[in-house]
């Protein structure tokens, strides 16, 4: 008995058809089978070989025709099944498998839907290796992990650059990739300001201010703090700048970093001078000494944000620093000290810079571990510094260290102003305001009982879209007695004013510089990264997977375990062997 199967408009590689033919011929009970495209000539072949059927006549040249000769009707189903399997092939097998987790690269790559980014948060000694694996798989890398050597960083970034990929980090805490927040990042509106930053909280402060001004940021690319070192040579920053320049949706490019090595700064500025879009730079810690026609050099984070907004609106840059209103507190003459207890490193750096600038004639700095600034009267501490976080969570998550510091500072009769930041957003504490509020209330009460006034200033780094609620956090802190400042810049200037100082805003000439031509072209893979929601493989902290998925992006969780029992040397050998000649684990 002859059975005809016609697959309309179906195309498969000849090899697939040949293999299928072999498979079907091997089925027990199948006397004869033939698979061919349904061309008129082939229909003749079917007929002349005794496989002609009426149904065959319906077949067209672009249909696959299978005619089976078997005495057992039930064999037809088996044949049909084999045909389905063979013709379905790979295209259907790649459905995304939500909720599944991988334990190795191969599986992660299979589960992920066209992944383009690896998010790495495993311990530093293993992070470099997995970053290299990710690059070998053709993925961009976001490295949250720290404790990666500078040599490894330079090597990874060089490799990435050659492959047209981007390595953000190590020690990268913040990035917005096409509106998707990674790690510690706020939910900001999308918009035409593009940011590259070598500092996490710096990016957070600038993006949230921009958001609160009603503008937006679609891409904020983190580079990690050491990208602008001589050894690394700003590889990630330069590629990022070029990508933002090439993206027609970006109107203004904003670059944030600590002051880089001199030759690296020259290199970065030279690239920026090649760019026609308006640029804002902030080398936080350097007081700018000139302006340029197309490059606005900002002094503080708020200034960088405000000028970016102005430029994006097509307005002329015009930044007027402010202090909080109605902060009139009668301090005792002995109360001269500013104490800043920060969870955001860059915010602490900015505070130290402004305090130093305001009191430059009167203060001599004491070098002390764990302090960003320590003088006779003032102290600024970054509680995220390694000294304070060893064995403890980051102060953005854990308030304990901060509470301790605040309580201690009250005992110092010189203390006049205490400054605290509350960085909300993804990755942050659920309700830091409520965690700090009782302490603020207590110290203000106890100072009052001792017959002196104390000022607690607080700033919330966040947006209305952050899950903790920007306004709610402000209300809780206000309720506790803290005075709220809109930005860190405003907070520090207010503190300085309270103890009788002032920071002069630089007024600068526009200067012109010679520059050499730069190739501004960047690999399309980097353009793809910033032009679409990333498809992520998350290696490490599971909470990052949820955050990425919540923002509507795809993410596969790779539950990483050290291979070779964690023996680094053996792992490196395996690493080499696995990627020798391009193989994978």
């Amino acid at each position, binding site marked *: 008995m002859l059975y005809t199967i016609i697959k309309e408009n179906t195309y498969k*590689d000849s090899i*697939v*058809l040949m293999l299928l033919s072999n498979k079907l011929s091997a089925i027990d009970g199948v006397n004869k089978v033939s698979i061919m*495209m349904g*061309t*008129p*000539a082939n229909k003749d072949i079917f007929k002349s070989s005794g496989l002609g059927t009426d149904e065959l006549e319906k077949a067209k*040249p672009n249909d696959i025709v299978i005619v089976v000769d078997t005495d057992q009707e039930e064999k037809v189903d088996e044949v049909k099944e084999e045909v389905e399997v063979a013709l379905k092939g790979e295209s259907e097998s*790649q459905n995304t498998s939500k909720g599944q987790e991988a334990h190795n690269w191969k599986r992660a790559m299979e589960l992920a839907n066209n992944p383009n980014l690896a998010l790495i948060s495993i311990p530093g000694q293993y992070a470099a290796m997995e970053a290299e694996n990710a690059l070998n798989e053709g993925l961009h890398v976001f490295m949250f992990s720290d404790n990666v050597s500078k040599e490894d960083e330079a090597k990874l970034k060089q490799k990435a650059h050659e492959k047209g990929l981007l390595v953000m980090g190590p020690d990268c805490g913040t990035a917005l990739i096409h509106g998707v927040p990674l790690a510690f990042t706020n939910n900001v509106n999308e918009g035409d300001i593009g940011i590259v930053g070598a500092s996490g909280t710096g990016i957070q402060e600038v993006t949230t201010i921009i958001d609160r001004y009603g503008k937006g940021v679609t891409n904020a690319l983190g580079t990690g703090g050491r990208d602008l070192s001589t050894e690394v040579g700003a590889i990630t920053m330069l590629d990022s700048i070029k990508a933002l320049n090439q993206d027609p949706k970006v109107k203004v490019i904003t670059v944030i970093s600590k002051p880089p090595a001199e030759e690296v700064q020259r290199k970065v500025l030279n690239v920026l001078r090649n760019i026609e879009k308006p640029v804002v730079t902030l080398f936080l810690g350097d007081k700018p000494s000139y302006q340029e026609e197309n490059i606005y050099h900002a002094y503080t984070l708020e200034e960088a944000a405000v000028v970016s907004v102005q430029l994006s609106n097509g307005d002329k840059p015009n930044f007027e620093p402010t202090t909080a209103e109605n902060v009139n507190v009668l301090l005792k003459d002995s109360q001269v000290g500013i104490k800043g207890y920060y969870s955001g490193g860059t915010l602490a750096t900015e505070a130290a810079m402004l305090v130093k600038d305001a009191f430059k004639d009167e203060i001599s700095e004491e070098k002390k571990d764990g302090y960003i600034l320590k003088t006779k009267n003032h102290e600024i501490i970054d509680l995220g510094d390694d000294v304070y976080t060893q064995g403890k969570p980051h102060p953005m998550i854990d308030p304990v260290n901060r509470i301790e510091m605040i309580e201690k500072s009250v005992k110092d009769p010189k203390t006049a102003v205490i400054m605290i930041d509350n960085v909300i957003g993804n990755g942050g504490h659920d309700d830091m305001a409520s965690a700090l509020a009782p302490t603020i209330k207590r110290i203000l009460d106890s100072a009052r009982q001792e017959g002196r006034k104390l000022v607690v200033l607080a700033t919330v780094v966040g947006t209305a879209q952050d899950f903790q609620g920007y306004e709610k956090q402000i209300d809780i802190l206000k309720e506790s007695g803290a005075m709220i400042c809109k930005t860190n810049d405003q907070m520090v200037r207010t503190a300085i004013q309270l103890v009788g100082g002032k920071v002069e805003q630089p007024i600068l000439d526009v200067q012109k510089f010679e520059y050499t031509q730069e190739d501004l072209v960047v690999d*399309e893979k980097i353009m793809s990264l910033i032009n679409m929601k990333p498809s992520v493989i998350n290696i490490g902290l599971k909470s990052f997977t949820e955050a990425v998925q919540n923002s509507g992006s795809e993410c596969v969780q790779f539950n990483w375990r050290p291979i070779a029992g964690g023996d680094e040397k053996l792992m490196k050998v395996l690493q080499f062997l696995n990627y020798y000649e391009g193989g994978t684990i």
Partner: protein
Amino acid sequence: MILQASAIGSIALQLLKEEKTFTVHSIFEKGLNIVDRNGELIFVGTNENGTFPFGILLDPQTKQTVKTNIRVGDTLIFRNNRLFHNLFELVFNVKILPLYMDFEHANINKLKENFKYISFTSYESTDFEPARVLSLINKLHDPTQNLDEVFRYFIGRGQGLTPTGDDILVGILYGHFLNNFIEYKHLETLRALIKEPLTTIVSQRFLTCAIDGVFSSKITALQHEPSLESMENLIEVGSSSGMDTLYGIYLSLTKE
């Protein structure tokens, strides 16, 4: 997502007109075919089977990305030098694949010599036994013949996506461009027949090009490097397509 094509064939380039829409016709291991409203086909994929004048060349990674994002029946639109799909866009800041029509450079004697090392005995006692193919070749330079029936026998006959008969015809046509022997009249008969629904759309594309002297790079390699290696590279194309083509070339060059 922005993807970058690596190169483009000149025929594909002519088909990519502003605001023109294409439909994904079929997806294969090595790439995919898209067709315009007139049924003109462009192959988008890697060069594992050589490059084609009607091809858009992708690197393997890009091919994979395209394949995972695309389904048969999807629409693509060409605009601003880009091919837009709802999940990606393909950019064409690329070189145009050279069209090798320098058939006069071929070293026919060397090719003939190398054919001695390749066995075509598997075609004996098949629908395409040497006597039958040679009979066609001999009629091709006889202007008195009517070849309609003979062509109908070859076109669309045999295994595979490009049936064996079609591949042999492509090989014979290549032999003709190396060493002119086919009467113009017969080329026109063939051109007309290909327009009929006698074979697959992919074969139609290969044959239409071949009549105009346009061949894939694995074939034109023979006129630049008449080595056994070039022949073996051609043999590796498809399950039997490359071999079938070579068989056609062999018979048309050794007919005397």
